[in-house]
């Protein structure tokens, strides 16, 4: 278990990253790396900056300080026009799916292939159906996103995110708003995709049971700092805040996390 350790060979590296939205500071000097081909789950309470970490990796927001390296390239100061080349190595599954609501599910999945490949329509159709089958969706070609359930939208979004075979997959809250069966289905899907394609995965979540089952590495955002480690390591932590959080003792841990953040900001806190 470590705080602020980085592996410079990792496909995604955060080095002393600061991020604030107006007066609200979300990340303060965050340093961590996300190992190649592994599932890293970013865990934390609401508003702790989980989604912000993913949006920083995708270049959708820019950090106020520090360095972010994605696929070997520092993206902090990269102009938007050059970010598109970096994003071609990324896939992102948004919390709400972010499927284009005027297109059918088939066209949503075909869209990135039509944009970035020279595949013929028949080949595109084959690939789309292959990905839909991989996420367990059938007979949804002609449906619009608005006609699908929450779980189906997430699966369609996941299929679209991996259809271009990205090196790094970002999944924003893949389990939110789902029933327990759908949670397990998405969890199994993510593990299978990771195993079969060897994609580096960054998953933001506050769903602790799934995190403990699927994560190779957990980045726990507490206050303005991150605690990084394997799930088992974190569960055995001597830090009561970490243990409480992972045991889903929500009220106490959040209270403690808030206190911890205050202590850290005032410099009175030391790592266990």
């Amino acid at each position, binding site marked *: 278990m470590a705080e602020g350790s980085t592996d410079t060979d990792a496909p995604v590296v955060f080095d002393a990253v600061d991020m604030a939205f107006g007066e609200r500071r979300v990340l303060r000097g965050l340093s961590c790396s996300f190992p190649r081909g592994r599932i890293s789950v970013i865990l934390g309470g609401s508003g702790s900056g989980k989604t912000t970490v993913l*949006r920083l990796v*995708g270049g959708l927001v820019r950090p106020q300080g520090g360095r972010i390296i994605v696929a070997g390239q520092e993206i902090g100061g990269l102009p938007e026009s050059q*970010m*598109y080349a970096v*994003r071609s190595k990324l896939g992102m599954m*948004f919390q709400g799916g*972010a499927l284009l609501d005027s297109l059918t599910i088939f066209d949503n999945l075909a869209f990135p292939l039509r944009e970035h490949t020279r595949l013929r329509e028949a080949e595109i159709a084959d690939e789309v159906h292959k990905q839909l089958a991989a996420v367990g969706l059938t007979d949804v070609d002609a449906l619009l996103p608005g006609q699908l359930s929450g779980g189906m939208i997430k699966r369609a979004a996941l299929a679209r995110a991996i259809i271009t075979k990205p090196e790094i997959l970002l999944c924003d809250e893949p389990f939110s708003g789902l029933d327990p069966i759908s949670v397990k289905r998405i969890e199994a899907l993510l593990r299978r995709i990771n195993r079969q394609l060897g994609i580096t995965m960054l998953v933001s979540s506050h769903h602790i049971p799934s995190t403990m089952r699927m994560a190779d590495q957990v980045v726990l955002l507490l206050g303005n700092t991150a605690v990084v480690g394997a799930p088992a390591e974190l569960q055995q932590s001597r830090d009561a805040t970490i243990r409480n959080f992972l045991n889903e003792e929500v009220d106490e841990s959040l209270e403690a996390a808030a206190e911890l953040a205050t202590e850290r900001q005032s410099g009175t806190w030391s790592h266990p």
Partner: protein
Amino acid sequence: MIGFVQDLGWMAVRFVDHLGKLAVFAAQIGRALLTPPPRVRPFIEEIFNLGVLSLVIICVSGLAVGMVLGLQGYNTLVRFGAEQSLGAVVGLSLIRELGPVLTALLATGRAGSATAAEIGTMVATEQLDGLRMMSVNPIHLVVTPKAVAMVCVMPLLSALFIVCGLGGGYFVGVKLMGLDGGTYVSSLQNAVDFHDDVVGSLLKALVFGVLVGLIATYRGYTSAPTSAGVSSATTSTVVVGSVSILIFDYFITALWGV
């Protein structure tokens, strides 16, 4: 008093800030227009959405305005024994002023607000971020076809509004008031100059198209990602768009003489 001056200052700063961002946004649209691949299909869809779906409102409004002009014009002109000039009055009013201005105001209310709401909803539901993550520039795919379509349809809608208005004026003047049809048409023909009036009118409509297209897409694109943000973008498109049209109308009339 100091608070009032401060508020005024902040308003001025925000105005200049928006103006600068709008200029950058316009430049991005210009650059996207020259960047391959051309987005032909979205452009044609927007021509349909903004143009074809506005036909009924434009035709009905044009007809109604032409009929009112015919009635008011006839009642006024007949006092001076100048009712033969009805065609000229209706024609010049519509071509030089009412056609482009009212069309632009109607298009702002119908198509401009719809454009802002659609883009704003895409912002709120992360669809534009989704496009960015698929390495697709949303200004290229979503914004530019809408803005350019607005520029293209505005002169056509304005021309249609004018034609309907002339028809409405003809109906009231000739069919209801008993004016001679030949007199109405020849008065119109003699008074209207193709270059000064018709071309000028179309250019005016073109400028209004640029204004509405730019304001609607900018407001939608920069809206806050919430339902309140979408609502605010829609409202401000109509308000800012309408006021801008009226202000620009004065300056175009004063400087170009159209």
